[in-house]
């Protein structure tokens, strides 16, 4: 067996009290395409940060070609070993492709940059690696796949032969993915080694030879792709034995419960022909990968987006798309995808944040009664068990869990008939998670219809049924009581059963 190109052993990385990686291992042989898979929070990105020299591990060693990794400060040495193409571009959008390839090392002629030579060398570099991009194009004008190839070519020109691709297919459509894979295989033939990170297991089987699975910050297994059937891979990722927990016994939703939300034929760029209903007192989960369109669908129902076609009705009323205010008034409470980005105004107090949507009820003619507002906010704080000094405390002081409770409080403040929750427990501790999910349960008991969009199995486990979106279409429906591997398999689009056969 040849010396591994990259070998990471016993990597431990902690951030304060949380252990991001407890036992990270990776051995990549030269010339292979190696897949790194694991659910969110399994420690993939931490391992990548260690492998690319962005962070030093607390314990463990990284070796390149048998030699110890260079010190963290020596960026040039790292650049010659390894490069990572992130989802977020690391190019300067306004500059040409040629200049991006040679930033800060442009070829000189008598002390001045020779643009002719720069163009020539860029064209030669792109040609060597068979990248068909105009070196004179503005980088901002490139398609995602071309930009990725430019970044790969730049990395290769530094001498790196080990390239980490961090979810390269997330923003690509099927044909572009095919082309990317074609290029990857060609580069592999010329001696480039890839570490391929993807949520789409299908792609792992298509383009990789070996796969390493991480789960709960630990190395689980490394095996040749050919020896690991899909079910075994999904099991390794999900850790079925551990996560198979209490499936809380609850009454099924009565068949005569009135339908609150009716979506029919909803279509946009991200999803296609969506039909679904949510009854009063029913919790419906919506699962899928990051590109599946699930978040966009939820945001459409909440009024943030306007679809290309289709309708959504709340009871009998048509939901006014693209008008958050009107949707809110119609009786929809919404927890947005990211509390930092869309959920909270960091500079305002808990009270201001929690009552933002209901101010018209707390006063007359646009004036807000401060006392009423404080009382209302204090009630919400108590109801949601938010650990805070009071309504006046800035929301930026709160821990992730308590901040998320404020977002939830605002969604509940208007006593909605439909709750739309996107990643309601993302990045919160276990206790807050329990308490947030308990709020969902009590809303359900009050007869509220709930639509939960989430990546977390724990969120989805509480649902009466879970719909799975794949490439913008509902492909499966799992009634409560599903097994983790069933759900993960349909989320990742690897179905062991023939197409068209129902699970139920």
């Amino acid at each position, binding site marked *: 067996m040849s010396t591994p190109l990259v070998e990471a052993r016993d990597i431990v990385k902690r951030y304060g009290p949380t252990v991001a990686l407890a036992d990270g291992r990776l051995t990549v042989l030269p010339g292979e395409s190696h897949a790194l898979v694991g659910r969110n929070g399994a420690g993939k990105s931490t391992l990548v940060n260690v492998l690319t020299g962005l962070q030093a591990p607390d314990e463990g060693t990284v070796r390149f070609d048998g030699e110890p990794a260079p010190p963290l400060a020596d960026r040039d040495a790292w650049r010659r070993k390894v490069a990572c193409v992130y989802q977020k571009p690391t190019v300067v959008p306004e500059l040409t492709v040629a200049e991006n390839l040679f930033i800060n090392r442009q070829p000189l002629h008598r002390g001045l940059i020779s643009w002719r030579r720069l163009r020539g060398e860029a064209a030669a570099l792109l040609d060597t690696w068979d990248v*068909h991009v105009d070196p004179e194009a503005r980088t901002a004008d490139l398609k995602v796949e071309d930009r990725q190839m430019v970044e790969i070519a730049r990395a290769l020109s530094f001498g790196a032969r080990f390239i980490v691709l961090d979810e390269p297919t997330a923003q690509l459509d099927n044909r572009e993915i095919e082309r990317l894979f074609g290029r990857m295989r060609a580069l592999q033939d010329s001696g480039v080694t890839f570490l391929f990170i993807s949520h789409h297991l299908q792609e792992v089987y298509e383009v990789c030879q070996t796969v390493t699975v991480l789960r709960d910050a630990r190395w689980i297994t490394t095996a040749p792709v050919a020896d690991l059937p899909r079910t075994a891979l999904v099991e390794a990722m999900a850790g079925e034995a551990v996560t198979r927990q209490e499936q809380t016994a609850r009454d099924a939703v009565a068949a005569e419960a009135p339908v609150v939300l009716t979506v029919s034929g909803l279509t946009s760029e991200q999803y296609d022909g969506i039909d679904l209903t949510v009854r009063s007192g029913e919790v419906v989960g919506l699962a899928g990968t990051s590109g599946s369109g699930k978040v966009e669908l939820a945001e459409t129902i909440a009024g943030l987006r306007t679809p290309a076609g289709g309708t959504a009705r709340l009871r009998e009323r048509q939901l006014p798309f693209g008008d958050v205010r009107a949707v809110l008034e119609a009786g929809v409470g919404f927890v947005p995808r990211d509390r930092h980005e869309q959920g909270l105004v960091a500079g305002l107090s808990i009270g201001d944040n929690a009552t933002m949507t209901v101010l018209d009820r707390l006063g007359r003619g646009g004036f807000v009664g401060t006392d009423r507002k404080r009382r209302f906010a204090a009630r919400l704080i108590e109801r949601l068990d938010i650990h805070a000094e009071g309504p006046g405390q800035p929301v930026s002081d709160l821990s992730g869990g308590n901040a998320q409770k404020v977002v939830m409080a605002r969604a509940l403040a208007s006593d909605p008939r439909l709750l739309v929750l996107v990643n309601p427990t993302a990045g919160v501790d276990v206790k807050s998670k329990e308490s947030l999910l308990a709020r969902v349960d009590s809303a359900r008991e009050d007869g509220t219809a709930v639509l939960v969009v989430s990546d977390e199995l724990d969120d989805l486990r509480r649902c009466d049924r879970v719909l799975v979106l794949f490439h913008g279409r509902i492909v499966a429906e799992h009634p409560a009581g599903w097994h983790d591997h069933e759900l993960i398999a349909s989320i990742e689009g690897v179905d062991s059963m023939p197409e068209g056969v129902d699970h139920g």
Partner: protein
Amino acid sequence: MAETKAPPLTPVRSPDTRPARTVILRRARELALVPALVLLMALGAVVNDSFLTERNLISILGASAALAMVVLAESLVLITGKFDLSLESVVGIAPAVGALLVLPSAESGWGTGFPAALAMVAILAVGAAVGAFNGILVVKFKLNAFIVTLAMLIVLRGVLVGATQGKTLFGMPDGFFTLATTTFLDVPLSVWLAAAAFALTGLVLKYHRVGRALYAIGGNADAARAAGIRVDRVMLGVFVVAGVLASVGGIMQTGYVGAISANQGNNMIFTVFAAAVIGGISLDGGRGTMFGALTGVLLLGVVQNLLTLAQVPSFWIQAIYGGIILVALMIARVTTGRAQD
């Protein structure tokens, strides 16, 4: 399905005309203001007989030289993705310090009796020092550039008023006025100097790694850092250079006016930003050329001159000037076809 996956042996190349066209288009954007400038001059020639005379054109250039230097300075800072509002106060304080060092106490100077040449060095040093101070606050201590330099603008203006007791400084040695009074081929030295500064900066921005680093930093500072550019050091340098360039602008202004009043450079920064943005410098950083900035300066210079020639009542001149800046921005938006952010 399986057959279609075979990679094509001869990949389709994009037709060769496309890249050439995009290059021409990009060049055209740099020249976007030239037609407007030509149009305005034609208009001027029609409206007023004395507009297209050699003497008037030279006077436009002479009047624009100081503004040009400050626009040049601001453009460098803007391309790097930062702001420097205090440049307008540097235009006042730097030459004033020079003058105070030269003038005897009887003429409200400090009586240090510096020779004129040394005073010139001191003027540039003041510009550099202000730039360095701004730069350290913004780059090292991560303060907000807009507010830091706004505060500096106010502080320096106040220092100037305080140091001169609000009086206008007269009677400096000839050295202070050489740039405006000495001519070469009938054109004042200040114009030649500004032109040379623009040419040199344009050259550096286009053909030197440091120049390209400014665009990289303004466009995506993280990418620039990842490419090995010393982002902090370059930014600090840009602030210092901008301060020096603005102090040169101050000397030119002093020569043009013939004295230093306590509000020399006052409100100039608005015109500076207008000229830069009209000339295609992005306030978000990473975009713009020296040629564009220069056309912005010339456009405003011509407008100013036309308004004077047309004998617009002085009470209305500001309103009209501001309106024309607005219209120029709209025209620039249409001709460049790009959002001005």
